[in-house]
């Protein structure tokens, strides 16, 4: 049995199809990444899986329960970190946790212990009684992650957990997630715009565009699946006349840019070109002082599958964007 089973799920708002017939499964213990341009339908998908929005058609089972028919059973086994930061700024870290523990009906003795453990594991224990309005963005995010785990869920949903955080906070959020996943035996579904994060942390990645699944595989396989374009950066000890032409003539080389003795070689086939460059240098009696091969990144995969054009489309205004929302927690 899979932890998440999605079968032909669809959500339309009037004529607009936000999610159009998606199907995929997530295994227990997997970190499953959902990538896609803005407005691709990721958030709608997450909202359907977390029972916030009922699907128009199709089914989804989370933790073995149908999201439409057994929504309350689903809610008991999932932890959800929405995109917006939703902790109460006026309340302390511990109070924020405590309210949610009560909403999940966790008994008093257990509540205290669980909250302390979780605050320790997200490194916020020393700030437990400080109001959240004094927290940085990263600290708030970590608190929300701890809050989402207060009822010991099996499956964890995170919608862009690191958006808007500085690089150090991003790393710490991911380190915490990785550790918590091991400690709590979690299955994680996450959306992100950071390809490097997805590449490093996700076991499998689904790329969604226009509400459809356009690719689904491990990051490595996804990168291998697109026509490769590697870049070699090579420094030579000395450069004889005509060397640039020699390099250009090597197999699979697309383009060469030279700056003194540093060459930047674009190749259709990184491994073949690397061997050819080394062989040619040895024959010419030139020493290669440094060589690096940059392989395809997930960014390339993303652009390959979702196209280059900007997705400027109109969407329903977010109520939180109103200038009348008070700056309050």
């Amino acid at each position, binding site marked *: 049995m899979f932890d998440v089973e999605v079968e032909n799920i669809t959500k339309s708002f009037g004529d607009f199809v936000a999610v159009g017939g998606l199907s995929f499964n997530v295994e227990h213990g997997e970190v499953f990444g959902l990538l896609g341009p803005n407005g691709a339908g990721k958030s709608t998908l997450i909202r359907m899986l977390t029972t916030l929005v*009922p699907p128009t058609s199709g089914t989804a089972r989370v933790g073995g329960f149908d999201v439409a028919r057994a929504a309350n059973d689903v809610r008991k086994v999932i932890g959800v970190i929405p*995109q917006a930061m939703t902790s109460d700024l006026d309340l302390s870290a511990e109070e924020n946790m405590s309210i949610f523990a009560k*909403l999940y009906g966790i008994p008093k003795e257990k509540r205290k212990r669980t909250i302390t453990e979780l605050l320790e594991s997200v490194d916020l224990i020393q700030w437990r009684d400080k109001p959240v309005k004094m927290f940085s963005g990263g600290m708030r995010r970590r608190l929300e992650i701890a809050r989402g785990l207060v009822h010991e869920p099996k499956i964890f949903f995170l919608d862009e957990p690191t958006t808007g955080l500085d690089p150090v906070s991003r790393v710490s959020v991911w380190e915490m997630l990785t550790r918590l996943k091991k400690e709590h035996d979690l299955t994680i579904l996450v959306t992100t715009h950071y390809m490097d994060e997805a590449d490093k942390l996700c076991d499998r990645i689904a790329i969604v565009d226009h509400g459809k699944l356009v690719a689904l595989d491990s990051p490595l396989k996804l990168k291998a699946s697109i026509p490769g374009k590697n870049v070699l950066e090579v420094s030579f000890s000395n450069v004889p006349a005509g060397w640039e032409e020699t390099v250009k003539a090597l197999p699979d080389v697309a383009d060469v840019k030279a700056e003194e003795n540093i060459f930047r070689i674009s190749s259709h086939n990184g491994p073949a070109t690397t061997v050819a460059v080394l062989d040619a240098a040895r024959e010419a009696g030139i020493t290669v002082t440094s060589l690096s091969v940059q392989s395809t990144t997930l960014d390339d995969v993303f652009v390959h599958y979702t196209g280059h054009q900007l997705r400027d489309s109109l969407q329903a205004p977010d*109520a939180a964007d109103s200038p009348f929302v008070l700056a309050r927690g």
Partner: protein
Amino acid sequence: MHRILAIIERDLRRFRRSPTLILVAMIMPLVQLVVLGYAFGGVIKDLHVGVVDEDHGMQAVKLKEMFEAVHANARTFDTTPYNDMGAAIKDLRDGKINAVLNIPPLFSRKVLAGFNPDIALIEDNTDQFVSATLEGTFTGMLVPYNEKPPLPHTTAGATLSVVEVYPYVPYIQYLLPGTIVLSIFVSAMIGGGIIFIDDKARGLHEGYLVTPISKLDLILGFNLAGAIKAILAGFVLITVGSLIAGIPDPLNVFRMARLMLLVVMTSLALISMMFLLMVRVSDPLVPRAIFGVLNTVLYFPSGAVYPANSFPAWMKAIAMVDPFTYAVHGFKELILKNTGLWAISFDLAFLAVFTLIMMTAATMLFKRTL
């Protein structure tokens, strides 16, 4: 149950940390009470009356002595003598004086002859309150002239003797019941309207919706949290308001208990009404936009500032379904007349039924999804 309590706990903790909004809800009606109470309730004084005496007789002198007496004591008006009507009327039109009193020629002679003497009051009637005060004062002064010795074989003139059941009620006390209801309404508007929609827009409700809390628990939690804040505002107003307005024996425990029951019923009615109005709203502008309109439509037709008997039919219709009407009536009975609960049983029943209808409708419209 513990889930309802969790929602209430969150709301009240937040309120304790930043009570500004609800404090505003209490202070605004108090300020209104004091300003309106003294702006409308006072006795009109220091008006200016021009007197044109074309009689110059004894009776005219007597009249003018009476004017001086009024000026020295009640200070309703002072007088300025004019020699001719033209100059007096000009000053009246220029707003230098509020009225011109004309004592016509032969006034003294007519008084003595018992031949219908009359004096004329030419007044600036753009201000009804001023002209009513002047007419009242002058009519009062002329009463002795009209007392004739009763003649045999004629019917005696009927007079009205007024018996006042309650001590004199200054306007500020008359306003207090409406002010209490207004403060409950403003906290319901802020707590159940503005903060509720802001929380929704900011995604706080999304946090609730992913937990296994039931729809009914959510609705009860939201409403009770709002009602508690409104009850608090009501409690402050019945104590502080009574002290400010000078209600006799303001802190009588039994009356306070009766008042609190009405505060609770009013809070529940207004919060549930607000909840129904906001149940499908997501734009934070909406509660702010309807705040003023709703306030006017509910407060003024309730009889809080002026008796409902004077209203046109359409306004009476609003008053009939307006929960303010019954709440204001209840508070008037309890505060101004110190009645028991039986006197307000219909008001309490109306508020209870109103709450029930609002909550049922809101529960039917409430969506437990986004």
